């Protein structure tokens, strides 16, 4: 049986850990709030942008802009994989990584080439070792720089797409459903295509001002940027939520451990007292027998 002193040290170390974790939980809660506010403000903007772009794309022939080019047989796939930089956020990264690994095995057979971009250290570190074709990776994405980073990333993606170095671009990230649920999401952002093809509605083409070409040149690259930024924001918000939940669970686990250890400590202490008492009683009895 462990000595009293050992148990005591263990209790105090678990207590320390639990304090750190509950502090991390509070920090995550604050960060989550901020990220969530930014996300909730950005969602209507990106939804409106998407709506408009889809409506334009529906009315356009794919020859009118390189970003609308849809390949009959897409050969080159580009996956943009968004994870977090840091761990301690439960299954946030690991389930995403596992999902992507299965996806790579089952869904990418028809492609001859798969290239990757990693946003976030975790994904890069995991897949970086496997000798995949990595076009770019970004770490250190924060609330302050995500709009610049999304611009850089989307410029890279669109340039590559226009040059013909990729036929399809898919974003993989955690979509923020609520503080408790995050959903792994695949989103094809290039080529830009409207989801509702083959509908019978009669489409009146837009009047474009100044010119259709000018509008497409403005709207479509910006759309790619908006989608990337949205995904980054969704992922960041999800990360804070996941960390908050993970830390909450960890804190309550630590408290359970403390409870058990304290129980063990008390039991051991009582056992020791009993042994000591028995020693004393035996001793006195032995002495009194000797007197007779």
């Amino acid at each position, binding site marked *: 049986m462990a000595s009293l002193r050992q148990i005591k040290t263990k209790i105090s170390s678990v207590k320390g850990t639990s304090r750190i974790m509950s502090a991390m939980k509070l920090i995550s809660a604050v960060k989550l709030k901020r990220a969530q506010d*930014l996300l909730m*403000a*950005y969602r*209507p*903007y990106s939804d*409106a*942008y998407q*709506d*408009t772009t889809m*409506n*334009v794309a529906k009315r356009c022939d794919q020859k009118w802009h390189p970003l609308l080019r849809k390949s009959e047989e897409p050969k080159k796939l580009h996956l943009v994989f968004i994870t977090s930089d840091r761990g301690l956020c439960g299954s946030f990264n690991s389930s995403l990584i596992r999902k992507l690994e299965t996806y790579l095995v089952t869904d990418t057979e028809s492609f001859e080439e798969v290239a990757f971009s990693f946003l976030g250290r975790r994904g890069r570190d995991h897949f970086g070792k496997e000798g995949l074709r990595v076009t770019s990776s970004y770490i250190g994405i924060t609330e302050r720089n995500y*709009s610049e980073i999304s611009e850089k990333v989307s410029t890279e993606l669109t340039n590559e797409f226009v040059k013909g170095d990729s036929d399809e671009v898919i974003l993989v990230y955690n979509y923020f459903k609520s503080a408790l649920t995050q959903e792994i999401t695949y989103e094809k952002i290039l080529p830009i295509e409207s989801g509702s093809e083959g509908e019978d509605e009669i489409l*009146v*083409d*837009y*009047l*474009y*001002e*100044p010119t259709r070409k*000018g*509008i497409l040149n*403005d*709207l479509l690259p*910006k759309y790619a940027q908006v989608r990337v930024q949205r995904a980054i924001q969704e992922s960041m918000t999800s990360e804070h939520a996941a960390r908050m939940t993970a830390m909450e669970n960890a804190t309550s686990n630590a408290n359970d451990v403390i409870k058990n250890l304290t129980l063990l400590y008390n039991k051991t202490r009582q056992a020791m007292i009993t042994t000591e008492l028995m020693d004393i009683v035996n001793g006195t009895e032995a002495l009194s027998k000797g007197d007779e």
Partner: protein
Amino acid sequence: MADGIHLQVITPTALVVDEQVDEVVAPGEAGEFGVLPSHTPFITTLHTGELKYRKGGVENKLIVEGGVADVRDDKVNIMTDGVKED
């Protein structure tokens, strides 16, 4: 169709305007343009400039910093990088 136009002015950080109005005048790339109900689908990029909208005789003004205006089905969606109250 005479119930006016649904105007939305959206920036990356806020939904600035979301209401039913009678008329919108916006600073398009090729010059200022006005939108009344039953306008044909129309899309344009915007200059930085004054966006005016009228609702029941009251005129409101905003400064929009570029962006895109999407006019369709009696809806005007303006996606802009930022707005300033006039």
